[in-house]
């Protein structure tokens, strides 16, 4: 009796729960969806000419802190890289040599994301995370080319529950933190930036005139916040799941219609299927629920391996829980100083535009202005102009160039103005600070000026026609 009680420690109970076999159908569907989205995403870049525009045309790329060594391939190399991504997506979807192709897909996609910070998007980050998780999961054991090679296309009927739970956790994290980020005065009290965005879409048929009204933005702001904070709960609960998923479809369709957010609605809508019971594909295609998991699964042997796996899983979960909260370590408004903005699921939270002019004082005392256009594409300049760490990176680049031209030390200052959620533009960066003396890093940035304290404006509705 004591031995049994000893064995039933919380850790062991958790380990047993995570190892519990669940029908593999939903995870097979997830694998196919994930690979399919990767392929479609890569093809979009190839067919829209975005590989050339975003990875070949720029003369300068912004690096992530600690990833300055990442470089883009040549023009041909980048095109081939995206072709490879499309093929890897197919391999993941089909479970073709999955143990090799799934990690490769993660590395190849994440490499693309690491090339240029100005191209950061939350849903690209999510896709990277999902590919990382998938690379550690045995999703190829059923309904795959690999299973067919092993003797049965159907393959394993069950896969460990931790796969499903981890994916559900990941999506719940995205939703919850996206909702938490909306708990701020701009979003909830002033309906910004939704009011700005919606009123500019007043020419849309049927709903257009409604969008112009501030009240619509207020209602949608609150609804969006509550939706993000709680939808993962309703998706997790069997009694509300179907209605919740209908809400997911409605929400992401509406957001996709209103805003230019590419694959995001598809990724979220399709990934949310993981909240359904593990047999949902069979429920649709064969009309039956399928058998439940064996009631008394046995834990696999190999305690050390299990402990390492549990440790890694715990680390990942802790990182995902804590990382989006890191902006609390920095003083000021994260939407203004952007410290802790990325990888935190702060989705569609700000309308921010900036005007940047660098002033370079050369060794001979002369002063010249350098336009970001000299280095950046229009898209890069737009992204950089509201993100202080990128403004700093370009300042260093300009300093390097000017030192090369003059052969003497230079000082670089910036006149950076930004408008946040419709407020009057104000200085974002201290114009008296020589940015050559500032290093990029994780410490609070004293060279970034405080955020505006005024409330954002309440814009009046303007009719489209």
């Amino acid at each position, binding site marked *: 009796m004591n031995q049994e009680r000893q064995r039933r420690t919380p850790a062991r109970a958790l380990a047993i729960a995570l190892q519990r076999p669940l029908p593999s159908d939903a995870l097979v569907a997830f694998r196919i969806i994930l690979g399919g989205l990767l392929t479609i995403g890569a093809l979009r870049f190839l067919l829209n000419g975005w590989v050339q525009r975003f990875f070949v045309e720029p003369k300068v790329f912004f690096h992530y802190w600690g990833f300055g060594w990442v470089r883009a391939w040549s023009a041909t190399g980048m095109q081939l890289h995206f072709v490879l991504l499309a093929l890897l997506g197919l391999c993941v979807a089909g479970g073709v040599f999955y143990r090799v192709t799934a990690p490769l897909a993660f590395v190849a996609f994440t490499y693309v994301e690491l090339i240029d910070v100005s191209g950061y998007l939350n849903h690209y980050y999510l896709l990277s995370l999902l590919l990382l998780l998938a690379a550690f999961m045995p999703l190829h054991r059923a309904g795959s080319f690999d299973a067919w090679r092993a003797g049965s296309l159907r393959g394993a009927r069950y896969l460990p529950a931790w796969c499903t739970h981890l994916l559900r956790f990941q999506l719940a994290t995205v939703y919850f933190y996206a909702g938490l980020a909306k708990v701020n005065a701009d979003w909830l009290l002033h309906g910004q930036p939704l009011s*700005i965005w919606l009123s500019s879409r*007043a020419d849309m048929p049927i709903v257009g005139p409604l969008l112009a009204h501030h009240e619509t933005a207020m209602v949608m702001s609150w609804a969006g916040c509550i939706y993000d904070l709680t939808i993962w709960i309703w998706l997790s609960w069997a009694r509300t799941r179907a209605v919740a998923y209908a809400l997911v479809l409605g929400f992401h369709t509406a957001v996709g219609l209103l805003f230019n957010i590419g694959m995001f609605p598809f990724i979220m809508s399709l990934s949310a299927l993981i909240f359904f019971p593990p047999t949902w594909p069979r429920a649709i295609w064969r009309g039956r629920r399928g058998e439940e998991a064996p009631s008394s699964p046995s834990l696999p042997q190999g305690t050390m391996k299990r402990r390492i796996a549990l440790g890694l899983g715990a680390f990942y979960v802790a990182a995902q829980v804590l990382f989006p909260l890191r902006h609390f370590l920095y003083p000021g408004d994260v939407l203004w100083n952007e410290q802790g903005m990325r990888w935190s699921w702060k989705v569609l939270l700000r309308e921010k535009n900036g005007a940047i002019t660098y002033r370079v004082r050369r060794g001979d005392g002369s002063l*010249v202005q350098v336009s970001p256009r000299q280095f950046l594409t*229009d898209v890069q300049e737009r992204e950089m102009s509201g993100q202080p760490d990128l403004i700093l990176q370009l300042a260093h680049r300009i300093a390097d160039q000017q030192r090369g031209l003059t052969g003497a030390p230079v000082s670089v200052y910036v006149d950076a*103005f930004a408008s946040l959620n419709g407020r009057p*533009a104000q200085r974002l960066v201290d114009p008296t600070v020589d940015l050559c003396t500032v290093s990029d890093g994780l410490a609070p940035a004293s060279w970034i000026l405080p955020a505006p304290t005024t409330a954002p404006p309440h814009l009046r509705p303007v*009719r489209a*026609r």
Partner: protein
Amino acid sequence: MKHRTSLALAFLAVIGTGYACVESSNELISTGAATAGTGPATTGGDDGFNRQAMLQHLAETVIRPETQAFAEATKTLENATVAYRSSLSAADLDAARDAWRNAMNAWQRLEMMQIGPAGASDSVLGGADLRDEIYSWPLINKCRVDQELVEGAYQNEGTFASEAVNVRGLDALEYLLFQEGTQNACAPQNDINAQGTWSTIVAEVDQRRADYAAAVASILDGHATQLRNAWEGSFLPAYVGAGSDTSVYPSQRDALNATSDALFYLEKQTKDAKLGVPLAIIDCGAAGCPDTPESKVALHSKQQIQQNIAGFRALFTGGVGEDALGFDDWLRAAGAEDVADAMLADLGSAEAALLAIDEPTLTEALAEDPASVTALFDALSELAVHLKTDFVTVLDLELPAAVEGDND
């Protein structure tokens, strides 16, 4: 059973959504907007402002009249160059030069209105590359014009029209009409000098320049007519009815973005290239600086900047009169009066700074009173900050080319 049905419906819905949605919200707007009315714009809203009315006003009262004025100016220019070609008289040369100045003034206002057919075909909706056909600055190349002068390619208008744009636009015409003497702009090692072909035409260089000018003026008039016809014809309803008429602009936002994009000429070209570079305020880096001042031969740069600012004011305010509708009215209607006031104040400061430049030409002002030119540059810088921040934020306009790719 109930559970299964809801699952099936949900799955079908997401698949359906996947097919129904297209990548850009703009495309989606256009799909639905085809059902919206296409009638004439009516003013609406509590303050009588609506965005289609603004587009209509800008198209009919600002841009179309400017294209008509430019077409008339180029016709006059063509006639003047033909007369000069026949007479080679000083009086006819003066008349041709005056006609060029008038045409250039009209064009410099239109430089601020590169919307639709005037724009580049690879980056502007409805673009037909007419801007570069008409005026290719800063890609000017006087030596290439001299080479054409030697080769005589301008004598065949059909084939000449396919030559590089910088040998057959207003910039080439400036050189042909205003260049004095028999020197050429090519380096000594250039073929026309090294092989002596230039020296064979020196005796007839005035006649050749006149012939060449007449050929360019004729081509120019054709492009001006094409631009005017577009704004008198099918482009205007596509612009005004953007979103309802999706032939050019999938949504009204696209037309509004195209119009605000045009305003950015004042920042990129007028402020930085036309003023910042000759003032040596702007460092051009490895790409090198554009050839400035803009008008080196006719010495017309100051007037050209003046016309840029006039074009900006016309597009921003919708011109003069109580019925004028422009971006300032939109800002006021939206409740952003402070942004409208600030931008108009900056614009007024720029106009005042320009008037305060006493020297008749920019070249003289740069030499004798650079502070006055710097004051104009600073005033335009203030305006540019508002343009790139409050203006685009409050009206949710996209910065040029920023609509590429996805967001968030």
